[in-house]
């Protein structure tokens, strides 16, 4: 009975369209990359900034746009449509924090917004810090040139 059930499920679930999904992810992700490069060049041209500062400001700009798009409720459909093209760039990180904060709003500012903001994005920071600490320690102790 159980086997029948999973057999029926497998037969009836739509196979993901690999090609369509990858193409959309490629185009959306690539466009965000080009947009970032354009912003960075624009900031260098307008404000005479160093490349590193312009890149930081470029990331902040993309984060701001994502937070606003999440607030207006348009990011969800964009994310649904573009899959990894939307969640692999920094847009996904900003969206996960903004949407977690928005959802927590009903529980109040402290326990809702404050406590649940890192509910989804927390794992990215934890994994990043743990791996960077281990790799940094190995490199510093054994491969210091």
């Amino acid at each position, binding site marked *: 009975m159980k086997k029948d059930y999973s057999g029926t499920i497998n037969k009836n679930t739509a196979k993901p369209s690999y090609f369509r999904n990858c193409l959309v992810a490629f185009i959306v992700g690539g466009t965000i990359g080009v947009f970032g490069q354009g912003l960075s060049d624009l900031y260098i041209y307008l404000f005479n900034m160093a490349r590193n500062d312009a890149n930081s400001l470029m990331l902040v700009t993309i984060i701001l746009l994502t937070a606003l798009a999440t607030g*207006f*409720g348009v990011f969800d459909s964009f994310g649904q449509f573009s899959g990894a093209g939307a969640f692999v*760039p*920094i847009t996904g990180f900003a969206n996960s924090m903004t949407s977690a904060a928005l959802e927590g709003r009903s529980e109040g500012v402290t326990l809702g917004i404050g406590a649940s903001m890192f509910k989804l994005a927390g794992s990215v920071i934890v994994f990043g*810090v743990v791996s960077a600490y281990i790799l940094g320690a190995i490199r510093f102790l054994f491969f210091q040139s």
Partner: protein
Amino acid sequence: MIYLNAFIVAGLICVIGQLLVDIFKLTPGHITSWFVVLGAILDSFDLYDNLIRFAGAGALVPITSFGHSLLHGALAKAEEVGFIGIGMGMFSLTASGITATIIFAFLVAIIFKPRG
């Protein structure tokens, strides 16, 4: 030319993420977490800097650059002050992005009402 490189590199990183979603049924949370680790690993062999020189924002915008920036800041500070610098410099390059995300997420959550 850097615009074409940016498009291709950012696009390909997203395609890898999409394949992991479709084939291995991983959630976005798993993929972004492991991509950050991947970025840190690539940076510990100094490979990620070459990718940034090649593709500019195409390598900076994907979440892999978060791991790279964490390790980069940590190592830069460690060279200055020794082992304790790994902790001191960890967030030095990513601070502006994390601060911005917290501020904007907070303001948006205060101002907007959740939908859907």
